[in-house]
């Protein structure tokens, strides 16, 4: 009976998770094409260093160490999860314990030690967010759901760890009644402290609560991820693999513009020529998520809202409206909204809303200095600047919404080849002046 319940639960969990992953993939595919298939070796290296090695986290050593504890515990616990799956399906108890012997004791002990560190890290993260009120974790874009999401993730983690120790601790005391010990690093002393003197029967129930509680939490957490910022635990890997590898200062040259400019500069061009059949430039720049690249959209799913970008942003730190983190959160919210709408009403439908306008304002976009601090800071190589620039391009090239002073600058460049009103003939005057 238990095996049957476990089997159904497992299938349902993975099924629902797959269903949501498919939605995520569909949403990312709403973005425009972008070729990131080059330099595979560099990409693997970036992924290993930045995602697996968490290189960029270590610019802030204390949160990096706490995060590392959670991360290591999460990764290594997956090994124990294999046994839980095997036990769940076969009805066995600690399937690998006998065959692996001392190595088994070592592995579980290792997981236990990491879990204790993760517990400490999680408590520290909760305190930092809710008691110390770290500024970057208490900004206005986090009001409401994002803050609940963050706390929920941490509470889930505490529950996961608590269930593991309930299971291992109760098991240890059961063993001790028979004169044995599992010999696991933490539960061999924590178990007796918590549960010594409890009857065999109750211990058995406790052990079962720990086991079932843990696996139910794992499945709950897994299916919570697609709705949460915590999705970064998976997305960090593809997202760093597909990082922009060019220098940060290099902005894309728009091919659609090149085609038009070349036509304008080419004296032999036929002004009445019909556009090529493969010409698709629907609009210049981005108004909505469908005008962004798939990588911009993947970036949005990879953001865990840590706010390092925003705390380093010169505009935000001087009180301007722009927050690179909000740009990423808005992009994700809008993408999910539009994706759901299109799945419901058909792929070619529009809901009349857009990223620019309904989510992001012009004032935010014009506050950016393009300094690349946000890009530099992001621990998973998200590029908010690329989105900001594409939205600016739409404002300027499609809507002619340019701040007045910039109109003057642009006119000067077009008329006299400099952002200020100086004649080109005066360009060499410096050589003859004092």
């Amino acid at each position, binding site marked *: 009976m238990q095996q049957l319940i476990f089997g159904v639960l497992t299938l349902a969990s993975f099924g629902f998770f797959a269903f949501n992953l498919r939605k995520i993939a569909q949403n990312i595919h709403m973005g425009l094409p972008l070729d990131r298939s080059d330099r595979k070796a560099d990409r693997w290296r970036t992924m290993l260093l930045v995602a697996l090695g968490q290189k960029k986290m270590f610019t802030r050593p204390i949160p990096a160490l706490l995060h590392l504890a959670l991360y290591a515990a999460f990764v290594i616990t997956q090994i124990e999860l294999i046994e839980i799956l095997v036990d769940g399906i076969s009805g066995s108890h600690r399937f690998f314990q006998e065959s692996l012997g001392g190595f088994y004791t070592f592995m579980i002990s290792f997981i236990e030690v990491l879990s204790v560190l993760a517990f400490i890290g999680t408590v520290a993260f909760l305190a930092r967010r809710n008691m110390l009120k770290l500024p970057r974790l208490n900004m206005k874009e986090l009001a409401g759901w994002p803050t609940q999401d963050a706390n929920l993730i941490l509470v889930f983690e505490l529950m996961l760890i608590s269930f593991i120790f309930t299971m291992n601790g109760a098991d240890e005391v059961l063993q001790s009644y028979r004169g044995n010990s599992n010999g696991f690093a933490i539960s061999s002393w924590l178990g007796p402290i918590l549960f010594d003197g409890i009857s065999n029967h109750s211990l058995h129930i406790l052990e079962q609560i720990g086991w079932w509680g843990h696996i139910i939490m794992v499945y709950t957490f897994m299916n919570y991820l697609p709705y949460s910022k915590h999705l970064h635990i998976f997305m960090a890997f593809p997202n760093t693999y597909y990082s922009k590898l060019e220098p940060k*200062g290099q902005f894309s040259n728009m091919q659609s513009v090149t085609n038009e400019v070349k036509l304008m500069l080419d004296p032999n061009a036929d002004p009445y020529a019909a556009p090529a059949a493969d010409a698709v430039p629907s609009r210049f720049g981005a108004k909505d998520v469908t005008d962004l690249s798939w990588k911009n959209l993947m970036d949005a799913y990879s953001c865990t809202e840590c706010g390092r970008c925003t705390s380093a942003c010169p505009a935000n730190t001087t009180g301007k409206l722009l927050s690179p983190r909000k740009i990423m959160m808005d992009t994700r919210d809008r993408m999910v909204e539009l994706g759901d709408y299109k799945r419901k009403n058909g792929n070619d439908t529009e809901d009349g809303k857009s990223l620019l306008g309904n989510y992001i304002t012009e004032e935010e976009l014009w506050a950016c200095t393009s300094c690349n601090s946000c890009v530099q800071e992001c621990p998973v190589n998200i590029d908010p600047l690329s989105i900001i620039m594409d939205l600016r391009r739409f404002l300027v090239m499609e809507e002619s919404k340019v701040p007045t002073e910039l109109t003057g600058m642009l006119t000067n460049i077009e008329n006299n080849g400099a952002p200020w009103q100086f004649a080109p003939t*005066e360009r060499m005057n410096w050589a003859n002046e004092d």
Partner: protein
Amino acid sequence: MSIQVRTMADMMAAGESPDILFWVGCAGSFDDRAKKITKALVKILNHCKVNFAVLGTEESCTGDPAKRAGNEFTFQMQALMNIELLNGYEVKKIVTACPHCFNTLKNEYPGLGGTYEVIHHTQLIQDLINTGKLTLADNGTFKGKKITFHDPCYLGRANDVYEAPRELIEKLDAALVEMKRCKTNGLCCGAGGAQMFKEAEKGNKEINIERTEDAIETSANIIATGCPFCNTMMTDGIKHFEKEEDVKVMDIAELIANAADL
């Protein structure tokens, strides 16, 4: 006093070709403060007998501020015209004292047909010193002075050039002091992304004031920069705090030209 500098057109007419083109940039050509940087660099190049030329009146904006302002059309018009000119002169190598021109020429022109070896002037000066072509006089100009370096975003984060300017400062008889936010963490001066040409959006502080506070905190006597726009922003910041007497804002080229008695 006029300064000796040849244009590409002069050189071509004389059947010569320079080893390197000095891309002066709009700030370096028209901005009164930046013109001094241009002249300091030319003095260094002349002193070291570098075979260089400028485009003179043929030079035009790289298009950087247009691109950052979102106007890709104006950018590409400028870029394609400049590339035609540069390719016509068969330019191979370019030096510039403006990180914005540097970034655009180096990174964004190749995709439009203009591929050159582009270096920042601090890299060129570093090379001149390392190869023994330029020696600094022991004139005590900077003795006992503290110098801090403000990283231009388009030199530092944008192109990972952090060391060349610092190595040059260390060659001076002065102490290099770092601001709390430096190198990859360096705070923007507030001018990038076409902000130089507009009022800042509504906020509670100007970015250049925030940055100038970082610099003043180091109690440096000189704020060194490698960008004409950073120079303007930091100079304005120093004026805001009425510290013009105590803190000077200077380009690396000016520091080196002074130290070399040029």
